């Protein structure tokens, strides 16, 4: 083979191999870091995995927030209207966390069916309901009528600030 051609062939091979490695790395990282969403009803039904992180959304049950007096540990219940699941979290809750508010928690489920959250997310808008929560409520048939209207109206002119309010790293 002509040496010029040979060199070019090596060049092409080099790029092809490089791109394949990059693709393989990407796909592996992608599969490992996908976070699935489960509603409290699905968790109670045993559909959520035990060995990996996932997201759960719902309304914070009124009167369910329990705080430790001498640390930042807190636990509360999330509901989709049909079932509840208890969430344990050690850290500072977002500004808009309050009872009755729709929130999303990210974490791992323990054998005791308590979710140990590594993140608790609440959007920076008191009218806002995370779409996952709204869907979970709808699926459970518990979406309050006025919330439903607000949900449909909402999610439209959300601007940058609002979107930014969502992913919270703690």
């Amino acid at each position, binding site marked *: 083979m002509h040496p010029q051609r040979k060199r070019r062939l090596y060049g092409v091979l080099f790029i092809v191999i490089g791109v394949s490695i*990059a693709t393989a790395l990407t796909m592996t990282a992608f599969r490992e870091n996908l976070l699935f969403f489960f509603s409290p009803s699905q968790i109670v039904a045993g559909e959520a995995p035990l060995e990996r992180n996932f997201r759960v959304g719902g309304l914070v049950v009124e009167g369910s927030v329990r705080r430790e007096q001498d640390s930042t540990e807190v636990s509360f219940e999330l509901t989709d209207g049909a079932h509840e699941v208890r969430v344990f979290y050690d850290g500072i809750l977002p500004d808009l966390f309050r009872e009755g508010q729709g929130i999303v928690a990210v974490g791992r489920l323990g054998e005791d069916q308590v979710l140990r959250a590594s993140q608790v997310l609440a959007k920076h808008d008191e009218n806002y309901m995370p779409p996952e929560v709204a869907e979970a409520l709808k699926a459970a048939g518990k979406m309050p009528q006025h919330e439903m209207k607000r949900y449909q109206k909402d999610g*439209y002119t*959300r601007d940058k600030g609002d979107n930014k309010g969502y992913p919270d790293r703690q």
Partner: protein
Amino acid sequence: MIPELGNLALSLALAVAVVLSLVPLAGSLRGNSAWMTVAHPASMVLLLLLMLAYACLSWAFVTHDFSVLYVANNSHTELPLVYRLTAVWGGHEGSLLLWLVMLGGWTVAVSVFSRALPGVFTARVLAVLGMVCLGFIAFTLFTSNPFERLFPAPAEGTDLNPLLQDPGMVIHPPLLYMGYVGFAVAYALAVAALIGGRLDSAWARWSRPWTTAAWLFLTAGIALGSWWAYYELGWGGWWFWDPVENASFLPWLVGTALIHSLAVTEKRGAFKVWTVLLAISAFALSLLGTFLVRSGVLTSVHAFATDPERGAFLLGFFVLAVGVPLLLYAWRAPRVRSVVSFDLFSRETLMLANNVFLVTAAAAVLLGTLYPLIMDALGQGRISVGPPYFEAVFVPLMLPLLLLVGLGHWVAWKRADAAALARQLWLAFTTAVAFSAILMLWLWGQAGLLVFVGLFMALWIVLSSGLAVFERLRRHGGWRGLRRIPGGFYGMHLAHVGVAVLVVGVTVVSTFETERHVRMMPGDTLEVSGYAFRFDGVREVAGPNFDAIEGVLHVERKGRYVTTLTPQKRYYRVQREPMTQASRHPRPWRDLFTALGEPLGGGAWTLRIHFKPMVHWIWAGAGLMVLGGLLAISDRRYRIRRRSGREGGEPA
């Protein structure tokens, strides 16, 4: 009356945009120079009309005209004047108007600075910009009109989102938009060149300053957004791989690739096809970024179900904007193929590698950003992709690229001599290795291998660039040669050093930061990284449109007073939203970051106390990149025709 005037101006702008898109293009195809020159006054009139519409909307904000729906949704009588003026771009409709004014501005800039270009080419470029403008004006007028009235007019508005009431938010969106819109110029230049079937080095040279200008605005915008998220959101992070951030990062990655690819096309006439595709992609991703952030699709893909008009319009516009140039390209492809050969070890190859890394990174980010949206739209359930994915993919892709940053500019075009290169660079390389090895031994046990690699890369880039500037100065007769070296050369090296500074900041802060979330009683003291924070309780303060609870933290280091920090928890009176206002003590080598959590009863509060070493280097690095971009645009040879035989620089 004023809002109707704005509406009228926008409608007239639509008509002018039709003229601008059609007449000069037709003129260029039929060789009618009178038609072609219409482009210049038309773009000027277009800009004036858009500015008039913008001024009308601003006026409605200033005078609290709540009969305008958009004003009622984004303003309030208690809102300070400066935030009323910036609230114009606080929502979807107004930010489209800002987009349009900027596009008009870029169009006029092209019309003014392109006098030296062939008239046919200029006419086509301006016509393509006119088409983009036409699409956006139509979208604004027919689906997102900011001048829509509200009957009956409410007595009071619902106020601007408190997060947006901040100086960072005042300048961040306009800068970002300047970047997004700026890529329209690179796009228009590429499309015009395709129409003419001439993708030559002259086209690449005209594209370079425009692309760099768009890129530097985008860099500044992204950096400011990151800075704002850091100090305003109160989480102490500087990048979250949030879809909104990714949306602006995608055109940046592709734009950076484009800047380098254009350099190859200009100098060597190679990579033409690739460069055209990058120019189209950079603008397509800018469009995507605008739509993703402002259309609400991120919050819920079902948002479009309630208003399918917008979604259909945007999708149609996107398909046209990307599809038509691709068809043009297919038609012109046989005429524009590059016939340039180069060796495996040459600057062309390294630039190709640079492009492969950047575009792969962009593709990975795009996948992580869009995949959840696509799955949701297909009804496959809700998923999300977390920051670990982006970090796992991005870091391995960027490390070899950083090595290339220090190497690329030393390697000759066409064919490079590896042995000579080794002689020139071995000292810089071994110095970088030695220094980072010493650092690693000194920090043994406290830091991982990534710190070593990160600091090595930064040092390597700085030494390599420093050596290059030194060599160039020596060849140009010492300090007197300082002014004879083209701005592009300094620009490239300054931007590369900026990358190094940013890498240092990222490496150090992600390894040595301390973040503590604690419960504190008044009088409690917490020691974080050598600083003692004493919590002195909270007090109440009042702002112009908010009430706040302010924590008082007395900070000492080794018994010496450092500062008193006052993080606030604000309650905005109109929107009735609580918001955290962090309090910081920034220094070049570190930042002390505190934020107030929640009251726990008995005077106790939860607090976030962070120690962030060298975090400001991240934004300082971005600042250097912007300065480098400015220097590169100022390069004389972009303004006067290049004389043959004169040595040019190689701008970043």
